[in-house]
């Protein structure tokens, strides 16, 4: 199955500092990718999708085909951004219509 990789399991930054959560993908073609967020003990929520090129809660993500990356960025982290973040491709990008998630990055924003 095609995969995405999130190399950092834990990431800690201070409030107001820039933050970048890394996501790399392994498949070729024109990928579409999503970022999901899970706040403490809540359901996963769609944060943003590549195809819409939107900015949600100050986060942006740019697809870099040369580096096969889709890193999530925010210029000034807030304490409420502390959560688990997952990178994932949509169904059409994975074999057998499966959704393969990265292992997730736990972001902690310290006061």
């Amino acid at each position, binding site marked *: 199955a095609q995969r995405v990789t999130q190399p950092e399991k834990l990431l800690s930054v201070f409030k107001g500092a820039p933050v970048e959560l890394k996501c790399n993908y392994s498949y070729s073609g024109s990928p579409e990718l999503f970022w999901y967020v899970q706040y403490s003990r809540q*359901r996963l929520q769609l944060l943003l999708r590549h195809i819409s090129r939107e900015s949600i809660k100050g986060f942006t993500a740019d697809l870099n085909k040369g580096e096969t990356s889709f890193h999530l960025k925010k210029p000034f982290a807030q304490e409420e951004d502390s959560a688990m973040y*997952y990178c994932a491709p949509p169904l059409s*990008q994975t074999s057998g219509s499966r959704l393969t998630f990265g292992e997730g990055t736990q972001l902690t924003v310290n006061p």
Partner: protein
Amino acid sequence: DAGITQSPRHKVTETGTPVTLRCHQTENHRYMYWYRQDPGHGLRLIHYSYGVKDTDKGEVSDGYSVSRSKTEDFLLTLESATSSQTSVYFCAISGNAGGWNGYTFGSGTRLTVV
């Protein structure tokens, strides 16, 4: 309301007993998924369904079975629960194979096998 509910929210069961978790959706979506979430492993796909009575295995399907007799319900059964199946189980739905709208997740079921 996200249009997807999981039941029960919490369950404690004994090793060796069968357990069934339910995912119910009101969105009339074709695709449904069961994931387990464990520290250090992220989300791993157990089984998925691409229509009524159409299911397939994911990457960690051993010890689990599923059924989908109606569009709105997707059941996950642990045939004989083991301690290694202690986890948080999430159901997800999607309306199309393209996945352009992303996925909607349930609130999860926290299962403890003692």
